[in-house]
């Protein structure tokens, strides 16, 4: 059973990726370029050491989003609010980080804590609405994403928390002093964020929390069956709320790597769209910390290597289509696999039943 699960866990994502590659192959063929050449070009450009560094940095951000989504998925929660939570985390982390003066390590820890808190609090709204008011978390989170963006855009205005540096059109928060910055590792003519290690800690922590603690057991139990968990004494609504907050807290860390090691201030240039990416990565990585890592790397690899297509007359947005088809293929693959498994189980149960009946009939004969 476990063996087949591992087998399907690898086969299904691979099949999904191949499927979308085939799709992109056809599109490129229609464009009149040689697809295999394009793929080769992307791979050689993407594995260029300089690009590899920025890919790793982007992977860290995506990894956080993926883990945040995975925590939600374990509870059957669809945390589409990662976008708003990440914004809140990065923004308030930047504001608080710029406002205080602390010794180096403490300063960084404080920023990370504030970011998690801000993301968690923002997620708590959706959690509260879900548990106490029965509001579907997808709808509330979509609305909350827009509201978070508006609040931050408002707070970023120059007479509030934002400022407009000279020669820039981009509103941003005040810069974080050197004590609150994280060092970078020089590698391949680039700089890898040391936030990378925090991501590893989060991944390991996620795995331990889920598999080795009572809390994780309760979480998985509630996710598998709300009613069964409740009947066996788990505070199921409370678990849903805590899981939502936890997911939001991790989502609050998405933008922190960039903030602490690169920009040192939050600006409107911080990208959006992490919510869907996070969900996609959690699906692709089957909610497993290692799987999510590979998925995150694939995602950032696709994005960073796409611009090379521009020179061949292919708009690089093709990778967005590719990402979308990967997600669709993966969920379809899981659905199909689940149905095959179900059918096999039913067949196994059915044949066991008939065997039982046969043996019973024989026993009856013998007694006669």
């Amino acid at each position, binding site marked *: 059973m476990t063996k087949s699960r591992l087998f399907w866990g690898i086969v299904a994502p691979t099949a999904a990726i191949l499927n979308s590659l085939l799709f992109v192959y056809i599109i490129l063929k229609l*464009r009149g370029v040689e697809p295999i050449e394009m793929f080769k070009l992307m791979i050689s450009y993407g594995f260029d050491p300089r690009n590899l560094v920025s890919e790793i940095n982007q992977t860290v951000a995506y990894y956080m989003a993926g883990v945040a989504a995975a925590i939600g998925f374990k509870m059957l929660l*669809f945390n*589409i609010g990662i976008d708003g939570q990440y914004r809140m985390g990065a923004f308030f982390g930047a504001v608080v980080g710029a406002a205080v003066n602390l010794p180096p390590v403490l300063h960084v820890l404080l920023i990370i804590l504030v970011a998690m808190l801000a993301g968690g609090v923002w997620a708590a709204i959706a959690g509260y*609405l879900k548990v106490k*008011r*029965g*509001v*579907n978390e*997808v*709808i*509330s989170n*979509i*609305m*909350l994403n*827009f*509201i978070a*963006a*508006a*609040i931050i*855009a*408002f707070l970023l*205005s120059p007479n509030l928390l934002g400022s407009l540096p000279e020669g820039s059109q981009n509103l941003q928060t005040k810069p974080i002093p050197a004590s609150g910055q994280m060092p970078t590792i020089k590698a391949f003519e680039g700089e890898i964020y040391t936030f990378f290690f925090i991501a590893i800690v989060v991944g390991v922590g996620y795995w331990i929390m889920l598999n080795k603690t009572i809390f994780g057991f309760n979480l998985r139990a509630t996710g598998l069956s709300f009613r069964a968990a409740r009947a066996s004494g788990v505070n199921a609504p409370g678990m849903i709320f805590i899981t939502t907050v936890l997911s939001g807290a991790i989502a609050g860390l998405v933008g922190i790597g960039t903030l602490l090691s690169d920009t040192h201030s939050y600006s409107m240039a911080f990208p959006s769209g992490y919510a*869907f990416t996070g*969900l996609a990565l959690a*699906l692709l990585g089957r909610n497993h910390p290692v799987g999510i890592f590979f998925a995150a790397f694939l995602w950032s690899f696709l994005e960073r290597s796409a611009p090379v297509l521009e020179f061949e007359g292919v*708009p690089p*947005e*093709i*990778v*967005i*289509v590719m*990402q*979308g*088809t990967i*997600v*669709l293929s993966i*969920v*379809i693959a899981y*659905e*199909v696999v689940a149905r095959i498994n179900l059918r096999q189980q039913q067949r196994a149960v059915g044949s066991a039943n008939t065997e039982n009946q046969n043996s019973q009939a024989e026993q009856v004969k013998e007694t006669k």
Partner: protein
Amino acid sequence: MSTNTNSAKKSGSKTKSFFKSPARVTLLIAGIFLIISLVEVITGATDISSPGTSGATLRFAIPLLMAGLGGLWAERAGVINIGLEGMMIVGTWTAAWFGYLHGPVIGILAAAFFGLASGFFHAIMTVKIGIDQAVSGLAINLIAAGAARYLSGIFFPPVGGDRTVSPPVDTLPSFSIPIIAPILKSIDEKEIFFVSNIAGLLYGVTKELSVVTVGFLLLVPLTSWILWRSKFGLRMRFSGENPMAAESLGINVYRTRYIAISVSGMLASLGGAYLALVASSVYREGQTAGRGFIGLATVIFGNWKPSGVFAGSILFGFTDAIRVRQAESVTALILAAGFVALLLSIFYTSSRRWKPAASYFTIGLVALWINQSVETIPQEFVTVFPNVATLLVLTFLAQRLTPPAMAGMPYRRGSE
């Protein structure tokens, strides 16, 4: 105790019938306009009821209405359509491209066709294959956005467009309603208190109407008729409320959902086409700007009813129009809302329902306080008004909402 609950019930039904009687609703609307005209006189914000604003309101409301109706069709049949935004993008792009090639009429038809196809795609994913409805919708959003950008990069630059902007497209013809519009205009110009305000408002929605606008507005009663008067509508609502029971009575739930979701995609896409061909004359990247999601919000706001979706989209379109045209008017509007809340509080006090009376009184006071203490409401907050309003409705009025019972739930034929 029992008499107490009885009287509460009585007054409850009273308020219900008060809002239900059409004559009284007209009276209520007239009253609101009286307040608005008063507020205009007090604050000098003259733009709230000007013909320009009502015209702009309609222009902003139509795309939301179409997205909302699209969401309504899908959810009534039991499937949530988060892909509305992507389907709108499909509409903007195809309308602009085919409109550029063959004229705006073909553009609209193309948008309808490709919207239908995108809805059909969502139906295959959610009904036939049975994947999570939210995942499918979000994937459609992503793929549509990516595909539009990819195709723009290929098709638009050679014909005088840009990587993100299409070449200009002819717009559809528009007309002013004869006789009525000129009369309203002359009344509006006389500046009689209250009468001119209403005339100005009506003039704004009767002049320079696009042909499509009229057609799209007619979809509201049509949808109502289909949902509650036709055989297909009954099947559709049944599929959304209880697909298993529907199946057991011989209704083909799958086919019903296929049709409903395809129509949903077509409506959303037509909303996008309106953005490209009527509201502007060009496709621009990011043109839909989250309108698909606001359409989703109008469905909730409108309590899953076509008339409610219409009211919601008019309200959200109105705030959009005010924001774009005269941002200072927003504070005047808050003053008006405060007056309305105070009136409601008096109304509830007279029927001895203390709790709503108290809450409306507080709302009224808060509104007056905001009006007194704030110069202008920041643009950002006006933009997200629909989102906040929807969250508030979901939070405080959830008991009154009647969503289709099985919307968003997975359903497999023959399973529980």
